[in-house]
Structure formats: C-alpha cells, structure tokens
C-alpha cells in the first residue's frame, strides 16, 4: 500500500503503462519538461525521452489528428488536453475520426487512443477552466468515457484506458487532484475493478445516490449527513459514463426505489437524464419517486466567485433527497 494523490496516481499509472508497453506514447502541450500544467506527466520525459513524451505544437485538432496517425502506425498514444475548455478544437477529430474508425473499417483498423483531460470546476480559475463536457462524448457511439474519483481508481483506470483497444476519454476531476488515498501498486492490472463497471461505495436502503468524478466526495458527504437523520443512502460511483453499467444501477434502484443523480454538468442533456430514462425503463414498477437530478444549472459555467453556488453540494443533495422521500 502506498499513499498517493489522484494526480500522483495518474503519474504513476502512466509510468507503469509506459514500462509495460513500449508502444505507449504521451502527447500534449507542455507535458515534457514542465510535466504538464498540473504535473501529471512530471518526470516522464526525463525517464522515457522526447520520443515517448512529446511536447506538441499548440493545436488540439493537430494533436488528436496526429495521434490517430500514430495509432494507425501501431503506437498507443495518450493525449493530454490541457483543460476541459480546450478540447473543442479537437472535437471533429474525436467524434468523427477517433470514435468511428473501428466501425468505419468494419474492425480492420482500431485506434487505441486515450484522451486525458482535467475537468470540472471548483478551482477558482477563469472561464474555460471549469467545464464538464462529458455528455458530448458519452453520447458519441464508439468512445468509452470514464472518470475516476480516488487515487486507486486513478491509478488502475488510467492503465486500463491505455490498455483498451477502444478509444477512451479519460476525465480527471481536477479539483480532487490532491485528494489522498491508499493504492496497492503491487497488485496486477488484471485484478483491478473493470473500467466500465460502476462501484457501490456505500450500501443503503432508502435512496440510491449516483455520482461520478468530482461529485463523489460531495455525495459521500451528503450520505453521511443523511445517515445522521436516519436516511440510508446507497452511494454508487458510476465510473464509466459510456457505456453505462445499468446492471449495478438497476440492482440498487430495484432495492431502494429512489434515485438521485449528481453531476456538475448542466442538467439538460446531461448524464443524469440518460440515467434517469434508463432507470424509468428498467425499474418502472419499483420507482417510488421520479429519479431526480442535482447538477450544474442550465447556464454556462459562472465566474469563479459564484462557482460554489453553481456546483452541487450537500445542501442541494439533501434537499433533493427530501423531495424524493416526500413522494
């Protein structure tokens, strides 16, 4: 067991992935000498060289587009997008080329590319540094979209993402980067919890609280407060936003009859609606209340001095719980 931060775990996970497979390359802006603006790749260029940790020109479409070519050549590129808000220039290459290559070629070509990006708000920065673009990717067939919420998941999931033969959008909850936790770095990758499976973090009976990435900590905090009031919440970390692990969700909601989805992204068109719709279809007779959503609002991300009121917090989750229980 080692204590690592989420950031440190990603760094260690990347290192291990590069050691395991010489075809793994890292690409991105400022990931070399600087080690990335968050230092996720710190020390890797020094140890693996400039041909495996590649500082790129400042052009996101170019980064993803050349990563496609590298993958076609047989490499496993891991692309860093510096911030969530800067992924959009690469959107065309991601959703039109990366996501569809396997389908377009009926399996002849595949693109084992991992696209990492810090995402979510709460770091008090300027516009474009607090976004949650997950729904754009999760609604794109052909992409796997995952996110981690603790150092152990960060360490294992980044390795699973790199090892995946499908392209993976790997979302890193930036405001939790410095959250610490124990990681059993001696274990085998094969023994890790599957990347596309959700995890029940706390078992409960009254209501299922579905969260992922940065809202997991918030959800756990809310569940603890609810427990004090005698309400038992089952907390599920989604982990994979596409595909969704509906089996785990169904089992929980069949039992609790209630569900609340929490995410930072806007409500409309977000993951919460998709999860809610799926649960309505699979658990119709078991639902005692509609699936509720506690999310960012249907506005662009606000100036940072308002973000603590924009981001879902325990108060809002408990308020939703109250609503849910009142049905």
């Amino acid at each position, binding site marked *: 067991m080692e204590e690592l931060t989420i950031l440190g775990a990603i760094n260690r996970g990347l290192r291990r992935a590069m050691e395991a497979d010489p075809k793994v*390359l890292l690409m991105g802006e400022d990931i070399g000498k600087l080690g990335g603006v968050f230092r996720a790749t710190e020390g890797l260029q020094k140890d693996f060289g400039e*041909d495996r940790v590649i500082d*790129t*020109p400042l*052009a996101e*479409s*170019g980064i*993803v*587009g*050349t*990563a*496609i*070519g*590298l*993958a*076609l*050549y*047989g*490499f496993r590129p891991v692309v860093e997008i510096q911030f969530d808000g800067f992924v959009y*220039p690469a959107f*065309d*290459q991601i959703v*039109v*080329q990366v996501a569809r290559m*396997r*389908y*377009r*070629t*009926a*399996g*002849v*070509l*595949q693109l084992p590319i991992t696209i990492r990006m810090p995402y979510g708000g709460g770091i008090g920065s300027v516009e474009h540094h607090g976004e949650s673009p997950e729904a754009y990717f999760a609604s794109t*067939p*052909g992409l*796997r979209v995952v996110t981690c919420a603790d150092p152990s998941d960060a360490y294992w999931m980044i390795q699973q993402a790199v090892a*995946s*033969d*499908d392209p993976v959008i790997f979302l890193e909850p930036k405001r939790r980067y410095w959250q610490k936790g124990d990681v059993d770095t001696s274990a085998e990758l094969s023994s890790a919890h599957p990347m596309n499976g959700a995890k029940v973090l706390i078992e409960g009976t009254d209501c299922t609280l579905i969260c992922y990435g940065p809202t997991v900590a918030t959800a756990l905090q809310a569940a603890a407060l609810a427990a004090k009031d005698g309400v038992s919440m089952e907390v599920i970390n989604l982990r994979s936003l596409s*595909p*969704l692990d*509906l*089996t785990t969700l169904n089992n929980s909601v069949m039992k609790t009859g209630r569900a609340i989805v929490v995410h930072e992204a806007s409500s409309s068109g977000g993951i919460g609606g998709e999860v809610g719709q799926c649960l309505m279809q699979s658990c119709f007779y078991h639902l005692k209340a509609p699936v509720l959503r506690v999310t960012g609002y249907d506005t662009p991300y606000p100036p940072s001095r308002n973000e603590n009121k924009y981001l879902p917090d325990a108060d809002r989750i408990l308020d939703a719980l109250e609503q849910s229980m009142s049905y």
Partner: protein
Amino acid sequence: MDQFDDLIQLLDCNGVAVADPRYSSTLDEETLLGFYRDMVLLRQLDMQATALQRQGELSLWAPSLGQEAAQIGSGRALKAQDYAFATYREHGIAWTRGVDPVKMLRFWRGTVHQSWDANYHRLYGYQIIIGAHTLHATGYAMGAQYAGHVGTGNADKDEAVIAFFGDGAMSEGDVNEAFVFAAAYQAPVVFFCQNNQWAISEPTKRQSRVPLSRRADGFGMPGVRVDGNDVIACHAVTMEALDRARSGQGPTLIEAVTYRMGAHTTSDDPTKYRDGADDDLWRTRDPIERLRIYLTNKNVLTDVIAADIAREATSLAERMREGCRQSADPDPMAMFDHVYASPDARIEAQRAEIQEILAKEGRI
C-alpha cells in the same frame, strides 16, 4: 500572374519532351507506356462508374476525369513500403495501390463505409472530411520516424507517407495544422495538393490569391508547383519529395495544377457556375492525349498496343458492371458490429429488438 507561369513541366501540351532546370526524368519508355495504360484504364474506370451511378447502381461518384496524370504520376512514385491517405476523388491512387475497381464501388454503392483493407493496400480509404486525413498522414509519418524507419539509408526499408487533397482543402485549419506538425517534427510526409481549379462551385481564388505552393515556405518546407497534367513531371517531383522524406529531410508541399474536367460529383451541375471556356482551354492540356502523342511519335505506342489497351479497358468496364450489380447488400445485423472491440449490452439489445421486429414483419 498566369496560372501556368513557372510550372514544372517535362512534357508539354503537344506531347513534346521539354527540359526543366530543376527536374529531369530517367523513365524508360516501357514505364511511360505503363503510365499511359494506367491513365486510359483510370479514365475508363471513372466513366464506367459515372455511368453506373446514372443507372442507379451507385448513390454517388466523384469523377477523377482530367486528373489522371496527377494521380498516376504521383501514385506510381510510391514504393511498396510507403503509405497513402487520399480523398473521395483519388481513384487513380487506389488503382496504383492495387485496389480492384469493383471494390472501389462498394463505398459509392452504400454497401460499406470503407471499400478496401487499408493496411493491405497501404492506402487509407476514401476520406470525405476535407483535410482531416492530412493530420493522420502526418501522425503516421511521425510514427515511421519514432519506429526508426526513416533516414536509415536503406532505400527499401525507409518509409514515406503521402497525403492527397484539393485546393479547397488548403483553407481548412486541419491542413494548416498538418503543415505545422510535419515541419515541427520534420516528418517524412509529402502533401500532394491537386489544384483542380474548383472546390465544388468555388474557384481556387476564393481560397487563395497566390499560388498554393507558396504556402509551404512560411511553414518551413519546400513548395513545388508542377503541371498536374504532365504525368512525367508529376512522377518526377513526387519521387524527389518522397526520397527527401524517406531520407529524413522532412516534408514537402506539391501543388499539381490540373483541372476537374467533370462535375464535382454525379449530384453536381457545373453549368450553374462555370462556362465552357475553361473546359475548352483544358481540353487542349489533356493529360492522356499529350502522352499518347509522345509515345506514338516514339513508336512505343503502336496501333497493336493501343488496341490491346482498348480491349483491356472494355473488359475492365464489363467487370465493373457485373461486379457492381452482383455485389450483395450488407447484412442488416452487421450494422451493430464493430462499434467497440467487445460486444456492448445496449447495442446487443438493440440488435435483438430490430431482429425480432424485422422477422415479425417478414422484412428479413
């Protein structure tokens, strides 16, 4: 400036070999005869496909008519180990990479999204998204570099990559980013731009007021402007650029000045935006005709050989017609394959659902 000023040319419009201070060609006459055969068959292929579209066998076709020299000249400059990325119009490149024309049609018929095995032919399938593949080509070339298959001095092992695109594509951000990356890493990639004077209805000057080849210098690579209807010159400049790439001297931009003699695609009606004058001018620059004259004067292309090639063309057309009509429709259930490396629960449920419905309605 006149669009034909300062073009690299080795065979003029009248089929006379001309000298160029910068380039020369040492191709023997057998090879040139081969180019001639390629071009004739490519034109036949193109005309047959256009006809098949009119007969409703294909949903669409993008004619290569008039661009035979640019495509055959550059395509024949590739070595087996090179890799190419092309657009919907480069049937001539597919031809030089050994793709069966019958296979080419499957994409246009709506049977598949990609007509051939990209790795087998070392040619990525028809790219529809303008410019997107220039970045793939650059990344692929970077891969050859990182793999150590560039500049080793082994002429049969060193690899180069070539990306084909049009004059309109020069305006897309992706293409310019490809120039940036290729130059930054000195990647072994050749950017071959067929300036066929039109991007659907827009003339090249809507994209740029200066020759496209001039774009290269500012990105830090050489730019070459060649007569795109001169198969010998196109071959020579491409060979040289590919050699530079393979030997580790970095990227090159080639602008082949040619003309889209036909419609943009079979859905297009050029009379809406261009008059016949240009067509007439360019007919005098026909890429096949000038080589025919040259080879005939040299007695390399005899009536007998010409008749052979004509016969070959006829049977190719016949093979295409049959192959196209016989090609089976895709299995509806194949729609659900290959979204991910492993089966996905959602998708499998959808497959089962539609299968049941189609069965119930007797549609399958």
